[in-house]
Each structure stands twice: as C-alpha cells, then as structure tokens.
C-alpha cells in the first residue's frame, strides 16, 4: 500500500519522512519539496504528476541518490541513504537503482549489448555471466535480435527498450523513470508502458515514474500529484492509498 501520511508500518520498501529540498538562488531560498512523506511497498508502480517546477524530478533525484535532501530521510530496503558519503551512494545506486530517462541517454558509440552491459562492468561477474544477463534483459524487452545494433540504428521506442534493459540488467531494487515516454509517439509510448507494466506484474519490479502525460500516469497503480513541492492529492487507481498530503 502506498501512503503519503508518514504513518507507514516501517516495513515498506521505500520510506520517505519529512523530505525537504531547498535551493538558494541569489539571495532567495526556494523550497522545492516541503516535508514530504511517502511509503512504497515492493511491487508498487507509482506515478508522479505535476506542473513544471513542482519538484517531481527533484523527488526522483533524491530517491535515486543523485541528490541529497536539505532535511528529512529516505530509507530503501532498510538502508538510510540520506547520510551516505558520495562514494557509498554511488555503490548503493549501482546495486539498488535502475534509471530510465526521457532522452534514453544511451552511449552512441556502444552497441545495444554493450550499453546494457555497462552496469554489469561494475560487478564481479565473468564475461560469460555478463553475456547471459545482458541477453536475458534484452530478451525481456524484445530486442535480443538487435543486440549488435548501435543506438542510431534503432527507433526511439527501441532505444528506450534498450534503456529499460540497461536499467533491469543488474536486477535493482527499484526503477526510477523520468518521463519514459516523453520523447515517443503514442504507439511507442504504449509499448513502453506495456513493458513497464509487465516488469511490475511479471517480474515484481517496483517502479516510480515521473510524467506529464495523464494517459501514461493512468497506467500506474497509483498517481501522486505534486504541486510546489507538496503532495496535494493522491488518486486511487489500482491499489489502496492513504492520502494525507503534508504531514
């Protein structure tokens, strides 16, 4: 169950408590996120919606350990990441987070296979083991026959599939998707969303997704709305949500 009232049982996969992020621009202090609470269980699929500047991407960056909060805590699978050093956080990301970006962000000079293999280069897996994992991930996204293609030889939808394969190849604890269909046509977007749904339904993945697109957001189990750094609304779509907004 997804809760935003800070009253979770403590057994959630992701627990966010009093999360605040403040930036200073000139002399002005801008509060991007304000004392935000969130509990996400394993296998949940959460969509975050909101206007530009509402703090969606900032929240995603904080959950992915790419940025540090000004206040509050984030605990993932029992590990509190908010006080980890930079190098610890890097290691933690490699193990626990799979990133899916709007612009795919594949390395253009590497083949699909090599792009998907990148996260595994940080592990102690042998070459043969890495190959097996990469082929499995590419099989999941339906691109095993395109593994030797370079990104420029793939369509946008196929590139995003490679990105998804790269995100899941190391079997991370959860996936963070930042506008995963933002650069795709509707048909490709549908295919990508179907793939993400399949990852949740058949592979038990936990997915947190930021999107502007209400149609895409509707595919998530739950959609949370952010406005000016505050969770102002929670709409129940698939699973139960305990709404509370700001605690």
């Amino acid at each position, binding site marked *: 169950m997804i809760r935003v009232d800070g009253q979770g049982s403590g057994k959630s996969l992701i627990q966010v408590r009093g999360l605040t992020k403040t930036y200073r621009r000139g002399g002005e202090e801008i509060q991007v996120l304000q004392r935000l609470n969130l509990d996400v269980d394993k296998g949940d699929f959460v969509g975050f919606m909101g206007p530009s500047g509402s703090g969606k991407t900032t929240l995603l960056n904080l959950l992915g350990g*790419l940025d540090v909060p000004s206040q509050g805590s984030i605990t993932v699978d029992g590990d509190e990441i908010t006080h980890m050093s930079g190098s610890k956080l*890097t*290691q933690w990301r490699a193990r626990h987070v799979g990133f899916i970006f709007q612009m795919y962000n594949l390395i253009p000079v*590497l083949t699909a296979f090599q792009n998907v293999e*990148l*996260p595994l280069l940080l592990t102690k897996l042998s070459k043969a083991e890495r190959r097996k994992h990469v082929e499995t991930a590419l099989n999941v996204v339906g691109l095993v026959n395109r593994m030797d293609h370079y990104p420029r030889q793939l369509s946008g939808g196929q590139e995003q599939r490679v990105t998804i394969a790269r995100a899941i190849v190391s079997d991370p604890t959860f996936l963070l998707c930042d506008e995963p269909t933002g650069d795709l046509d509707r048909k490709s977007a549908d295919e990508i969303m179907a793939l993400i749904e399949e990852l949740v339904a058949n592979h038990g993945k936990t997915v947190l997704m930021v999107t502007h697109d209400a149609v895409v957001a509707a595919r998530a189990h739950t959609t949370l709305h952010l406005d000016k750094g505050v969770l102002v609304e929670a709409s129940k779509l698939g699973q139960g949500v305990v709404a509370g907004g700001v605690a």
Partner: protein
Amino acid sequence: MKFRSLIFANLFRKKVRLILTIGSFAIALVLFTFLAVVNSAFSRGIDIAGADRLVIVNRIGLIQTMPISYDDQVRAIPGVKYVTHDHWFGGVYQEEKNFFPQFVIDVENHRKVYPEFIVPDDQWNTFVKDQQGAIAGATTAKRFGWKVGDRIPIKNSLYGPTKTWEFNLDGIYHTAKPDGDQGQFWLQWKNFDENVPAVIKSTAGWYILKLDSPDDSVRVAKTIDAKFANSSYETKTETESAFAAGFAKQFGNIEFLILTIGSVVFFTLLLVTGNTMAISVRERTSELAVLKAIGVTDRTILFLVLAESTVIALFGGLLGLLLAWAAIPVISAAVTGLLPPLLLSKTMLSLGLVFAIFVGMVSGLLPGISAMRMRVVNALRRV
C-alpha cells in the same frame, strides 16, 4: 580491463579530430626528438671525454699555437702518463660543403692517449711508416666512398698560399662505441711540420695528456699553467670534458636554445591534447552523467578520461618516434660535416615514449578532474 571497449569506442567517435590530434602530437614529438638528438650530439663529446685526460691550449685562444718543446716539459710532471699533440688542419676536400674535421696527430703517442679509436695494427703500422699517410674515420670513409690505398687530395689555405696536399689512405678507424666520433681524418705531424711556413713549424695546436689517475687532474692542471705562466705561450689546462663543453659553446648556448624550443613543444602538446580532451568531455557531459548515475565511481570516470588522453598520446608518440627514427638518419646524412652525427638511441626512443605518456596523462588531468567533479543532477539537467 572491463572498460576497454568504451575507451576505444570513445576514441574513434570523431575520427577526423582523432587523426588531427594524433598527427599534431606526432609532428611535435618528431621535433622534440630531433632537438633531443641534436642536444645529445653536441654533448656527446662531453659525455665520452676521458675522465683521466687533460687538454692544454694557448691561454689566448684555441687558434694560437704552442711550442712543441712543451711536450717533454709536460711529460716530466709527476702524474702525467702520456702526452700527445694535435693541430687543426682545416682543409677542403673537393668542395667547401664536404667538411670533416682533419687533425694533425703525433703518431707516436696518439693511440696511447686515445685507446677508444681502433685501427687495425697492420694499417696503423703502414701509416706510421708513410709520412704522407692518413687515417680516416669509418663514417667519413663511407661518406666519400674511400677505401684503403686511395689517394686523397685536400686543399688547404690556412698555412701559406692555397695548396693541395695529397694523402695516402693507409687505414680506417672505428670506435668501440657505435656513437663515437668516426668522422675525423688524421695526418702525420712530421709531414705537416715539413710543409708549413716557418712560423708554424715546431708547434702544436693543443696538447692532450693522459694521467695516472683522474684524482691528479686539478694538481697537474695547476702545475702546468703555473709552469708556463709569464712565458710567451701561457697555457690554459682543463679536463677534456670542460674543453669539449667549451668547444660546443662556440655554436652558442645550444642547450638553452633546445630547452626553450623543447618547452614550447611540450606546452603546445599539452594544450593540443588537453583541448581535445576538454572538448571531448564537454560533448559527453550527459553520457558521463549517466555513467555516474548507474554507479560508475568518480575515480573510474577520471581513469576513463586519462586512459583516453594517454592512448591518444601513445599513438601520437609511437607515430612520432617512428617518423623520427626514419627521418633522423636522412637529416644526419644531409648535415654531415656541419653537425656531429645525429644518433637516435634506444634510450632516447624509450624516453620519447615515456615523455609522450606523461604528456598524455597530464593533458587529461584537468578535463578528467572536471568530469569527476561534475554533479549528475546538473549534468542531466543540461540534456
């Protein structure tokens, strides 16, 4: 190395830029190697100078002579083992451009003082008996296609009216070390003395003495100069290496010149490679950010950039050294007589390679550190 494919794929991302960078690196390294070879050629005389040899010249200058009678007086000084004397002949073989150093030598003692010059005994004995004889260095003999038994005409205008002296080539000398001076031409002092004007007769251009021990050099030098002080031919005695260094300085401060040009080449290389890497890193900001996001450590990012700049430098360096290896013998042949032989030794090749790798690493350092310090969130926002 797990990231090998990424490093090489990035290298070949912009092929034209890669070729131009490697090309400029290679050309700069050719220039750098050439300068190092010239410097080495000028300092070689200093390096191979015998530690136990002193050179006596006229205090006024090298072109002033000294009486031949100094020979016996110097020989009598305790600590002096052998004494020999030379004269500069300064003739021209066929044309002015065919320059090579010609020395008038004292056949009785020359071999004792200079054991590093190797002449077969039979050739040497023929030379000693032949007053019109001459011995040529292997390089000079090869340069003009001379062989033992040839008659060598050399025009000279230093000693009286211009006259052609004819010599019988009785032998060819080599040196024990391949980088030794094999360009000289020796003729007999007796022949010289009989054919020069009266004012030059019974003189020596300079004396070379071999000591019992190098430890005696200061004492013996002081004794000699004191002995001939206030005479008509005061002397200046110094070690052979000091003499060789002074001789090299006649061409100007070669070492300073080479150091200056070398420094310019070094910084140009740094800027060229550093600029290439800086542009390359900037172009890949989002990719580096993604690598960091998926868990590549800052150190690995730095390593990737350094590896790339080092590989560029290594390719450029190898190409440059290959070009230098091919070009320097040609240049050396073209400037024979004007400059000492230019030799590109294995040590110099190794140093060139080390230099290239060093430049590669240093030039990648700034872009590498900036990539390492880049914040993922900021970099991703720039996409």
